[in-house]
């Protein structure tokens, strides 16, 4: 009898443990807010994760692109100015609320755009951006592998050839496999790759400085300045870096929710994202200008020689995969939240694979995308800068840093974030205003700009305009209509 009771108690306890584990896994994937006791990352772990995300070869790519517009001295200034402003505004808009409540970023976004509006924002900001970046990073992985195979064989590299495509496809598939195993495997990857990447950058910097003095490097001209007006070239370089800073908007909120508290969610962005990205970009800039080549997969072999070049390319190729894993994980966590019940019913591994199909297609049919990546990057700032402005105004000035977890995660159809058919017309209108202001001030495709661009950039007016419109219209119209549970 006693054995029966003991056995029954044991079965009940096991069932409770299983259910608790299931709930925790669901919370980890973003279905519920993570409790403070469940968060994985402290200050340094989040700094490593951020560094791994930022220090990837996209930093080398952006640095190389800056070298097209301005020389190293102006370039370093543009990198620091653009990144610090972009990263701080983005971190304020996303990581503070994720760090405080452990809430998934796009669930929190229901309070700004409505439960259907957050889906629209997700598709615009994450699907397009992440798929584009996954493809670009995979192509860069492919080019690195192609470059090192060519270096080993003493042949010329073929950056758009079949070897590059096969390697890029392989990179996406391996990334899928890593992310399918959950955030713990990503954490392990970050802890190993991030510190090693810092060492690699220091080695690259040493190799560059062993060929040229710092003074010589600073005096070098830009590779291909688009305008005769030096100030305009400088502001374009600042704008590219602002775009790089704002481009973290879709990602860092969902990484920050894994941190232990608000401060731990915010400050590592300054050290990890800003510090690491700036360092990587400066190395990319100096190398590009010194070697007359903006593509890192080419200048690395030029500067380091065959042996170190092979090691560097191999390492950078796998570092790329770390960044791919980070952005893929955060994007799918968001997708599960904004998706319909049928999307959420698809298994984690399957939805990851489906998301990877378009990047796989881009790698195979449009490898030229790699060469125009910075135009794609600047376009994204039209959206991300406006989103940051709306996020800051909504969370800090309209809601007084308070979110209602019950309403955010409960049934939405009759909840306070229903707004108007699930869309907050004010938030979406403010977003549209921000984007229009951006493109009116500076056209990323043609680089045509208004005179004000030289003094204001385009991202900052877009950010301010979107935030101001959202604030004024919400104060005027939202409370009276009972929209959005504003205090």
């Amino acid at each position, binding site marked *: 009898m006693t054995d029966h009771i003991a056995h029954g108690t044991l079965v009940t306890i096991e069932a409770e443990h299983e259910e608790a584990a299931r709930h925790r896994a669901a919370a980890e994937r973003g*279905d519920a807010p993570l409790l403070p006791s469940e968060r994985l990352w402290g200050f340094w772990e989040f700094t490593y994760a951020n560094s791994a995300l930022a220090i990837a070869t996209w930093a080398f790519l952006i640095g190389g692109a800056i070298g097209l517009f301005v020389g190293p001295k*102006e370039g370093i200034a543009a990198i620091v100015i653009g990144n610090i402003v972009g990263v701080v505004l983005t971190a304020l808009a996303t990581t503070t609320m994720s760090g405080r409540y452990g809430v998934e970023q796009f669930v929190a976004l229901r309070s700004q755009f409505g439960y259907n509006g957050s889906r629209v924002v997700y598709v615009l900001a994450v699907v397009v951006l992440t798929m584009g970046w996954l493809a670009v990073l995979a192509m860069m992985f492919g080019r690195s592998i192609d470059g090192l195979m060519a270096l080993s064989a003493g042949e010329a590299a073929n950056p758009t050839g079949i070897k590059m495509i096969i390697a890029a496809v392989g990179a996406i598939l391996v990334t899928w496999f890593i992310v399918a195993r959950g955030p713990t495997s990503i954490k392990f990857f970050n802890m190993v790759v991030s510190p090693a990447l810092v060492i690699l950058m220091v080695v690259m910097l040493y190799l560059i400085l062993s060929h040229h003095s710092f003074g010589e490097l600073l005096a070098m001209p830009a590779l291909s300045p688009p305008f005769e007006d030096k100030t305009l070239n400088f502001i374009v370089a600042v704008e590219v870096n602002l775009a790089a800073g704002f481009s973290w908007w879709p990602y860092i909120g969902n990484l920050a929710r894994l941190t232990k508290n608000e401060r731990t969610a*915010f400050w590592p962005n300054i050290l990890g994202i800003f510090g690491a990205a700036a360092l990587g970009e400066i190395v990319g800039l100096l190398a590009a200008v010194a070697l007359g080549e903006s593509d890192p997969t080419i200048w690395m072999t030029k500067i380091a020689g065959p042996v170190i070049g092979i090691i560097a390319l191999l390492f950078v190729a796998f570092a790329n995969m770390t960044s791919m894993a980070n952005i893929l994980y955060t994007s799918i966590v968001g997708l599960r939240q904004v998706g319909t019940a049928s999307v959420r019913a698809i298994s984690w591994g399957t939805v990851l694979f489906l998301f990877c199909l378009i990047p796989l297609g881009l790698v195979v049919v449009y490898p030229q995308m790699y060469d125009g990546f910075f135009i794609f990057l600047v376009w994204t700032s039209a959206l991300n800068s406006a989103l940051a402005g709306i996020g800051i105004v909504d969370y800090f000035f309209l809601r007084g840093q308070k979110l209602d977890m019950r309403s955010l995660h409960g049934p939405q159809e009759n909840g306070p974030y229903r707004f108007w058919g699930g869309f907050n017309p004010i938030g979406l209108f403010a977003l549209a205003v921000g984007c229009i202001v951006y493109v009116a001030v500076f056209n990323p495709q043609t680089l045509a700009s208004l005179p004000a661009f030289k003094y204001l950039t385009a991202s900052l007016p877009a950010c301010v305009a979107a935030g101001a419109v959202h604030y004024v219209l919400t104060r005027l119209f939202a409370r009276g209509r009972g929209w959005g549970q504003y205090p």
Partner: protein
Amino acid sequence: MENDTAWQNELARRARIYEDIEARGRFEGTMGALDYAAVTALTLVLVVAFWFWGA
């Protein structure tokens, strides 16, 4: 998951924990005025210094 009573209870439990933390003002490691002042000062110093140095 949405129709699962256990899951709805779990969501309510998590929401209640945050409501309790909020009501007692027991959020740990919150950003204070000093944090916001520090990040503003850091940003301004970097922007102004590098603008004069490089632009």
